[in-house]
């Protein structure tokens, strides 16, 4: 690993390896579809072509882009913001049909507000309530979108 890291930058190594793996997977998956003949290409032809291109790109990322600046490190992800946003979207998916628009928007906004740490729970609650009121007034009531506000 250490020797690899001296040769290639870590970010490019990871990126290239992922692309390469995706290419191999695509080739494998495409091999399950009929390739057809050149005059009448089947459903496996185009994906097979793409798989080969992905493999080439993966190698290119590691060998060409990875040897430009070897010190390029992986950036630090915003884990908290990512989790809060994913939770917000997940809650919307869970609640929109089971509970209705108002609870879904309320939960989504509240969860999304956890991306930042600088506000109090009361602030989050007030924000979520405000957004919910606006959404209920705008989308089902003013625009007439077919969404139940609350379902029992």
């Amino acid at each position, binding site marked *: 690993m250490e020797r690899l890291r001296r040769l290639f930058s870590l970010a490019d190594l990871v990126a290239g390896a992922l692309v390469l793996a995706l290419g191999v997977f695509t080739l494998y998956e495409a091999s399950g579809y009929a390739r057809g003949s050149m005059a009448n290409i089947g459903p496996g032809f185009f994906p097979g072509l793409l798989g080969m291109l992905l493999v080439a790109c993966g190698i290119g990322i590691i060998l060409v882009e990875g040897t430009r600046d070897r010190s390029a490190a992986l950036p630090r992800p915003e884990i908290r913001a990512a989790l809060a946003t994913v939770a*917000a979207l997940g809650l919307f998916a869970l609640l929109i049909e089971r509970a209705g628009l108002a609870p879904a928007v309320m939960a989504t906004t509240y969860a999304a507000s956890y991306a930042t740490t600088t506000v109090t729970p009361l602030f989050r609650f007030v924000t979520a309530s405000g957004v919910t009121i606006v959404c209920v007034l705008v989308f089902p009531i003013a625009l007439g979108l077919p969404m139940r506000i609350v379902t029992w």
Partner: protein
Amino acid sequence: MVDLAALSENLALGFSVALSWEALFYAMIGVTLGTFVGVLPGVGTMSAIAMLLPLTFLMEPALAIIMLAGIYYGGAYGGSTASILLNLPGTPSSAVTCLDGYPMARNGRAGVALFVTTIASFAGSIMGLMLLALVAPPLAQFALQFRSPEYFSLMVLGLMAAAILASSSPFRSLASVVLGLLLGVVGIDMLSGTSRFTFGWPTLFDGLPLVAVVIGLFGVPELIANVRSGNYQRPQAVRMRDMLPSRDDWKRIRPAMLRGGSIGAFFGALPGTGGMIASFMAYAVEKRVSRTPARFGKGAIEGVAAPETANNSAVQTAFIPTLTLGIPGDPVMALMLGALMIHGITPGTALITSNPDIFWGLIVSFLVGNVMLLLLNIPLINLWIRVLSIPRQILFPAITAFVCIGVYSVNLAVADIVVLMVFGLLGYALMLLRFQTAPLVLGLILGPMMEENLRRSLLISRGDPMVFLERPISATFLGLAGLLLVWLVVSEIRRRRQLRAT
């Protein structure tokens, strides 16, 4: 050469569409929301389109597209405000405006800079718009002779341009393009009935839901990456009389706008490149032709005027390939195509003749919208400065909710929100690994068309791949794509020499 009688007749039709009260109203909503998201750093045009999508289902297609287009070019106006006042670009294509706009603000010339960017944006839009009105109809006429091989080769060229010109990591961008093409394959193959890459999930049988994927790839990573960057100080309000440029300023900006506008028009019309490249190019050219290049970076007014003209000119000409060939130049155009298709209109060579009301109505609405933007951005500039101080703790959760509703409203399908979530995470991971998502979206849109045209070309030629080189127009496109590859190798060698030298 230009048929003036036909042009004026068409423009009259356009005015009759664009000057209706409804069209004016929706154009106003579009450009206002566009300016709003353009002004805010970290909130992009994509999110704004997602928020307004629910509205478009209730509207006639011409009005829907007028409104969505308003967001697009309105965003290009707003982007420079934060660049100048906070040294933070509101949109990627106004990043280069920071270089001289922020120093101008620090020298007490923020008002002049804001005024000049608006004038430059307007001038650029008008230049691009004139080109669009003059070039699109004959181009569509010319493209009538395109058959499958020409379309396939043109798409190869467009995707190569998107991958190679748009970034300094061509293999990454190319991988993005290919990943996009691959995602376009997902679903049941029309001809053979084979289910490809669906993993048995019925939602995917009809292909990936476009809107959810695009908003996931663009909107969600933006939210994640920018929510914690903190609130900024509220910039000072600008007084009207501090906004007017001096006579010396005018002398400098006029030629800069002409050059910037031409550069922008070119890069906008090229499928795959757009406002961001155009603005960087315009800045570089301006610095090179200047007799006093040392002033750049210290508040040179040309350095603000040229890229803003280029950016807006590119935004208008980006409609050329979209409306004439049905090949979108950038992700926003791709979404716009999607919106047209939801209304049962297939953009392409036939659009101008089959739906002249949409084409010419759109053109005239651009003119109207740009006049509105002039009013929004000069007399009302202080309103937008105040927008910059909305706390992110309120703004970002609210946008998250609006985006969810927007995406859900397209098909009223919970599965679309799941797709939004998955592609949001994918987009964020790609961002961290320094992949660009714009080429991916182009690939996703063009993928099915490309496979279809490849299949048909080979069918006509009975399996001979030389068909792409034997037809002159197709060969020209592929030749240009080949030149791009040569340029790629040359620039990589040059880069390495420079690296070794330092």
